[in-house]
């Protein structure tokens, strides 16, 4: 018994382990703080039935029927008409940029047709790149609109039955008419895969040198912080390029993802995104003191960026504060760009703002890394 198991020896091992746990501050903070932060963050932020989705109204006449339908749609809680488009072209730009999830078009002759009973129509275009986002809003649509119209007409119930079939709600699921979720997931996966490998690899770039003792020599030789940073970051940029080709080829061949947009625009955005990622990883490696800490910090960053970027759960479903928080992740902006370019065929003007965000991240991470980099061993 004594030779196989002793409580005293087990106790010695346990005490040693707890002492080491306590010494490693970052690990300790992660063990206690991270579960709590993530539980609260995700618990409040994630919502699979997004409401109050931004919508654009294209209505040229201001008659009681139009107003009744708009009011009824707003009352469902799904639609929030915060854009009034003057033309179909303007509405098209808004939806391709992702500023709105719906475009509701009520034709100019709507009132006349309602009164004459001549098959009145409204058109609802939904951005179906993420099929989950639009489904709730679309499913309530037909009944709500019909009832609103009837109330506005003030017809009796008997007449209501007769008129009910008259309103024709035309729904266009744009960009992904069959509601195939791969169309949404696979372009997103490109971003997630790149983020996982790029940040993780570069986050140990400097800590590995420090742990192996080669950092002291590297610093003693004439190399500037900028040279060291670029020397660490550029190889992974190349690795990222290879990954991009592999993922895009697989997206095309295995999942038959439609490829409507400009390839050169997509590749430019990917390049800037990968650059932002490797610089982020490098910044982490200037903060972490061991490879273990670097990996922990990477995961600490990784989980919320997947949850809050709109990759896993609808971005629009999150409360405003969580949406604002989601903006700090390069992945959020990258997802918007890839989905817009790959599925919607968006051109540069539509995604310029998001690309601008990525450029800001590149500059920010590079700046922080250069400031954080310790040229000396102080």
């Amino acid at each position: 018994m004594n030779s196989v198991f002793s409580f005293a020896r087990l106790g010695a091992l346990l005490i040693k382990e707890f002492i080491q746990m306590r010494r490693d501050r970052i690990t300790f903070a992660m063990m206690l703080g991270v579960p709590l932060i993530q539980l609260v963050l995700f618990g409040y932020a994630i919502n699979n039935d997004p409401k109050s989705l931004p919508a654009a109204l294209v209505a040229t006449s201001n008659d009681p029927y139009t107003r009744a339908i708009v009011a009824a749609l707003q009352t469902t809680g799904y639609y929030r008409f915060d854009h009034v488009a003057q033309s179909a072209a303007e509405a098209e730009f808004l939806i391709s940029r992702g500023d709105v999830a719906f475009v509701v078009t009520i034709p100019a002759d709507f009132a006349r047709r309602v009164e004459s009973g001549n098959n009145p129509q409204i058109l609802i275009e939904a951005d179906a790149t993420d099929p989950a986002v639009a489904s709730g809003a679309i499913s309530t649509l037909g009944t709500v609109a019909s009832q609103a119209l009837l109330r506005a007409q003030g017809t009796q119930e008997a007449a209501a039955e007769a008129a009910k079939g008259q309103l024709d709600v035309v729904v266009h699921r744009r960009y992904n008419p069959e509601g195939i979720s791969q169309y949404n997931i696979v372009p997103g996966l490109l971003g997630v895969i790149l983020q996982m490998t790029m940040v993780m690899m570069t986050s140990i770039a400097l800590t590995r040198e420090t742990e192996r003792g080669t950092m002291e020599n590297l610093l003693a030789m004439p190399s500037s912080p900028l040279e060291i940073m670029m020397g660490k970051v550029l190889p992974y940029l190349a690795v990222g390029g290879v990954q991009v080709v592999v993922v895009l080829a697989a997206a095309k061949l295995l999942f038959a993802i439609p490829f409507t947009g400009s390839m050169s625009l997509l590749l430019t955005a990917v390049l800037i995104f990968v650059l932002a990622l490797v610089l982020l990883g490098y910044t982490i490696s200037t903060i972490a003191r061991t490879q273990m800490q670097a990996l922990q910090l990477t995961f600490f960053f990784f989980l919320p960026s997947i949850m809050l970027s709109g990759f896993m759960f609808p971005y629009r479903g999150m409360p405003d504060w969580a949406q604002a928080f989601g903006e700090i992740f390069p992945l959020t902006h990258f997802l918007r760009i890839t989905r817009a370019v790959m599925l919607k065929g968006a051109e540069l003007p539509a995604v310029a703002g998001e690309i601008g965000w990525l450029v800001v991240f590149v500059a920010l991470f590079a700046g922080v890394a250069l400031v954080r980099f310790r040229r000396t061993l102080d």
Partner: protein
Amino acid sequence: MNAIDVHGLVKRFGDKTVVDHVTMSVAEGEIVGFLGPNGSGKTTTIRIMCGLLTPDEGEGTVLGFNIRTDSLRIKREVGYMTQKFSFYEDLTIGENLEFVARLYRLKPVEEHVASTLEDLGLTSRRNQLAGTLSGGWKQRLALAACIMHKPKLLLLDEPTAGVDPKARREFWDEIHRLASGGLTVLVSTHYMDEAERCHRISYISYGKMLATGTVAEVVRNAGLTTFVLQGPRLDQVAEALQGRPGVDQVAPFGATLHVVGSDKKKLEAALADVEKEHKGVKVSPGETSLEDVFIQFMSGSKDNMA
């Protein structure tokens, strides 16, 4: 112009003063040994000199460049060999040398690498991973890599720790050959025989520079008196002498016992009756060694690394 001229260097880590007002000058072409116990601030001082650490106080120049503002220039002209092997173990010997040659922009790279490998006698092992080398060979590779760019000053931090005596001898022959070519060398060590191969030595203890000069000067200035005891049962004699007034050190050396004290009169008094008390023991005046001086320094200074 001195190769190294620093004064009043202070470096603190937290509330510990690791380097405490160190002043040092090394003339061109000189080999200076840097001695002191573990944790005495040797490595920190060397790192300040090669621009890896910024001093909290103090000023100075290395090869005429200001240690605070010109660290990049210093890095180009100095060869620094770290205490721990700090080349890439997952690169081959050749790849490590090529890397260093390119960092210092030596052209053509291949020529420099080939001649360095030739000098080292490692040409046939060029494609061997550096991590698979034995301690002695790693040390030779590290030295070769840090003299490849023909530095004017070589800073060596315990270069021979864990290296066998023959390799150490060869290493020192190489150092002397380089110094005769005009290279200045500052080398930290724990070995007394290595200290004696230096032109001058500096002794630092717990951040403070305690002595500097040639070996003979340091020994003379320490002002110690040494007696050598010979005879049977010296272990009992040692025990009896331990702690007597005037006796600072009692240390067995082979078949003899060295008794050292800083006050000659007290030491003589303490030893006066030894020959009577212990039959067959003979007391004779001895030569104070460098090691005796260092032990004296060490026991006299407070340990601040505890």
